[in-house]
């Protein structure tokens, strides 16, 4: 018994020393750490790295190497989107921090600009949050040889538009709802999202009653809300990541506007503490979280396991967009490195392209040309999104149907006003 115990201790020491002595694989995280997308991503990454290192690290052709995370704040989500400063930070992450892999940046403008920079250094770049513009993966497909080192492991605005169309189509079918007012943040992804959804819904017979853009920092949404009320809107389509949208939700509830807020990306409303922040006025707000796992659901066996581990470590449910994709990033890297057996970038590109694993938000596979994660409404086939509604203090997943945990509800003042009944 004593001999066995001594052997176990010796082996642990050897392995520990072996791993402690092994050169770490550095994940350079160059994102805006001040916004939800950013710090939620960092938390997800740190959780995954902790788990992977505790399990022995990454097996690179027989050698066990740990992950190390180096974080640098790009501040690319600030008003004005300082792209040049963000690029300096990305470069510094590579040169000063010795990053082997790059995660980030957030804003589409900065992410697009970083493609050339990161590919010059031949570093595998993963986008885990933000940068919802389809232009990112279209650029990779158009210039494959130049930008092949970049991958997006999360959804993008076109998926979100399709999901929105599907969900709103469902409401139209069930309740006859077909009148929408659009209120978006005055940034590229939100403007585009609002325009595309409006155009597509118009073709399906919806009435788009207004389209308003609000700059970051808006403190009063009364004009838009009153116009929506006077135009008899049934859906308020909201898109943006500014914290000021909490004011919109508060005002919507205070004014009892008989329209349901649908946030096809509504930054502040994603977080678990939003209910408390709005003192319950968030009730009935629908929010698109982009990837499953950003709120508890049973998308895959790993989803709830991740949610519970996150809650145990950070004292809160996964906080929003970026959490589950940030968590998956180290696992995807680990999987690719172990299959490639090397950190050679070109070999890693081939390995990444062959990725096929069931993660927190469904099956992870990439389009071979554009390196965009393949979406699906079925987690067994591809990466699924998540749309939830705030109900009684909880984020209840209502879409896609395969992973839904509840149905969409309406506030009493809206049901009475519109005499809503299921067809």
């Amino acid at each position, binding site marked *: 018994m004593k001999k066995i115990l001594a052997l176990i201790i010796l082996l642990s020491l050897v392995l520990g020393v072996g791993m402690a002595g092994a050169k770490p694989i550095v994940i350079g995280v160059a994102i805006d750490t001040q916004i*939800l997308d950013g710090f939620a991503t960092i938390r997800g990454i740190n959780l995954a790295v902790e788990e992977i290192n505790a399990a022995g690290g990454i097996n690179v052709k027989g050698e066990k190497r740990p992950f190390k995370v180096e974080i640098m704040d790009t501040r690319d989500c600030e008003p004005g989107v300082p792209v040049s400063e963000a690029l300096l930070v990305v470069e510094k992450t590579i040169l000063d921090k010795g990053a082997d892999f790059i995660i980030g940046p957030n804003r589409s403008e900065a992410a697009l600009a970083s493609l050339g920079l990161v590919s010059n250094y031949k570093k595998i770049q993963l986008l885990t949050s933000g940068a919802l513009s389809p232009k990112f993966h279209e650029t990779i497909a158009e210039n494959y040889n130049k930008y092949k080192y970049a991958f997006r492991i999360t959804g993008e605005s076109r998926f979100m538009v399709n999901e929105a169309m599907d969900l709103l189509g469902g409401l139209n079918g069930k309740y006859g709802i077909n009148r929408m007012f659009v209120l978006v943040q005055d940034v590229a992804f939100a403007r585009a999202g609002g325009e595309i959804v409006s155009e597509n819904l118009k073709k399906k017979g919806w009435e788009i009653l207004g389209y308003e853009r609000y*700059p970051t*920092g*808006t403190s*009063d949404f009364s004009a838009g809300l009153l116009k929506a009320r006077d135009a008899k809107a049934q859906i308020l389509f909201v898109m943006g990541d500014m914290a*000021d*949208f909490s004011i919109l939700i508060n005002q919507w509830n*205070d004014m*009892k506007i008989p329209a349901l807020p649908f946030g096809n990306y509504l930054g502040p409303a994603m*977080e678990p503490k939003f209910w408390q922040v709005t003192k319950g006025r968030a009730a009935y707000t629908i929010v698109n979280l982009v990837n499953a796992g950003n709120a508890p659901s049973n998308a895959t066996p790993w989803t709830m396991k991740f949610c519970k581990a996150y809650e145990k470590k950070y004292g809160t449910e996964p906080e929003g967009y970026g959490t589950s994709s940030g968590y998956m990033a180290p696992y995807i890297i680990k999987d690719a490195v172990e299959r490639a057996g090397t950190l050679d970038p070109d070999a890693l590109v081939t390995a990444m392209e062959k990725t096929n694993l069931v993660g927190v938000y469904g099956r992870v596979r990439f389009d071979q040309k554009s390196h965009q994660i393949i979406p699906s409404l079925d987690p067994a086939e591809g990466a699924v999104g998540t749309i939830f509604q705030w109900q009684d203090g909880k984020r209840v997943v209502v879409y896609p149907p395969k992973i839904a945990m509840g149905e969409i509800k309406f506030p009493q003042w809206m049901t009475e006003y519109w005499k809503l009944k299921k067809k």
Partner: protein
Amino acid sequence: MNVIVYGLINSLLLVLIAMGFALAYSVSRVPNFTHGALYVLTGYLTWIFLNGLGLSYWFCILLSIFCVTAIGWFIYQLVVIRVRGMPTSEIIVTFAISLAILELLRWRGLRGATYVLPVFHRSTILIYGVPVDSQRIMAMLITAVIVLALWLFTHHTKVGLGLRAIAQNERAALLLGIDSDGAATLALSLGSALAALAAITILPLGNINVATGYDVLVSAIAVCICGGLGSWTGTILAGFVIGFAQMIVVYFIAPHLAMVVALAAVILILIFKPSGLFGRQKELEERV
């Protein structure tokens, strides 16, 4: 009716925001660029006292107003007094302090929608069919009370009359034995207190974030320049002009042009009447 009701609300909120800046400048001739930073700092301190120390809300409000007033006093006594009379240095120094405060708050994690203050009372009132939340109604009433209180203070108290004397003619006031630096310190402290009062009233409508500091400063400057630096009546009138103009543009043209209205008003005033609507800076007009 939507435009009239919310235009009135918007105007009074602008007046509330600008009053502290106007008071500080009219007496001390120091453009207090820390105005926006002190506004945000008040909100943050109140949040800390409420959530970190668990004190009662009203006590937190009084305590944070006191703290910010004291900070205003220190800013003048330790920093601004050394560069008083050098306008460029005054601007640089106060703006630098503003940046330091706001970036320190950002570094401390002031971000997202987490930092909110409770409203005084939660209800919605219909004004001619237009729903208005009670916090906005209270903000309007508080603005009216503060304007009246300031008028009474500056017209019927010895200290207030002293401040007006300094504002009208500093040298003559000095000859009469009124301490210029003392008056300037008081003005900056009161200006800081007014910024704090504005914060306590308006911040519960949304959330506390760093960017608000810059927006508040720009709004305060725009209102004061349009009204005329040093003129109380001008500040109030300009608040209404800009407030209604913004609401009309937001409602009938586009919401993302709201700040453009304020900045366009500044440009137009500087071109056509540089001293402002009720400004007394004839030297500037003559020079232009």
